[in-house]
């Protein structure tokens, strides 16, 4: 289960950026408060760093109304493509697993 969570988490991050840029703290809080993902907030930062190195997201520093500047994350074109590919794949995967693991009444008995 933990492998499955880890593998999908990076696409959850990309999905959160679909509608525009967000800063690290905001991303991390949203993910950690999403029921069922069960992530420690700190482990998301290495993931963000990896996504940036893989050029799926880019970052920029921006001033905040209060406090120090914040690092904002946004999707790159490669990130958008990776997210779109994953979304298709995931829908198929989810349906296939659902069909197998959901108990069904057998027809014809």
């Amino acid at each position, binding site marked *: 289960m933990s492998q499955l969570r880890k593998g999908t988490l990076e696409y959850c991050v990309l999905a959160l950026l679909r509608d525009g840029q967000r800063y690290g703290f905001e991303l991390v809080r949203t993910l950690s408060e999403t029921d069922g993902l069960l992530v420690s907030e700190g482990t998301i930062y*290495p993931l963000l760093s990896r996504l940036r190195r893989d050029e799926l997201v880019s970052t920029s520093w921006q001033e905040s109304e209060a406090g120090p500047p914040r690092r904002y994350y946004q999707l790159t074109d490669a990130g958008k493509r990776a997210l779109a590919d994953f979304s298709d794949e995931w829908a198929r995967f989810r349906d296939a697993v659902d069909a197998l693991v959901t108990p069904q009444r057998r027809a014809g008995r």
Partner: protein
Amino acid sequence: MNVHTDPLVDDYLRRLDAAASTLPTDQRDELVSEIRDHLQEALSQTPPGDQAAVRNALERLGSPEEIVAAAADPAPGQPAGVGSQVNVLAIASVAVAVLWFAGFGAVLALVFGYRARRQIKDSAGTQTGSGLATAGIILGWIGIAIVVTAVILIALHPNKSQ
């Protein structure tokens, strides 16, 4: 509140920095500064000295070791070998062990082999070849055993050649 004045936060960041010493320097610095900013943000509305809030924020982050482990992991779906290089010293270790050089190669094989294993461990997954390094080390010890055995045999039969 300013996180730089809180001893619990200080202690946490120190542990994180120490645990992150296995990461490449730029990743280590980036990680520690991200976590520091995170805590600054998480505790910005907290009055100074609110230990419960600080503990809660640190607990949500997870342990420093857990965070560093996540950083050292190869990307999900990407096997460890992709994009990584075989450690050069590991190759050299096996090569000199095989060449043997009347025992000198065996000593070099051990030096290279142990050093290669440390470099691979410190590379956080960017280098491979620890199997090769181990092979070099084993061959190195065998080489030394041969030299020692030869010396003992010669010592036990000093007159054989006369």
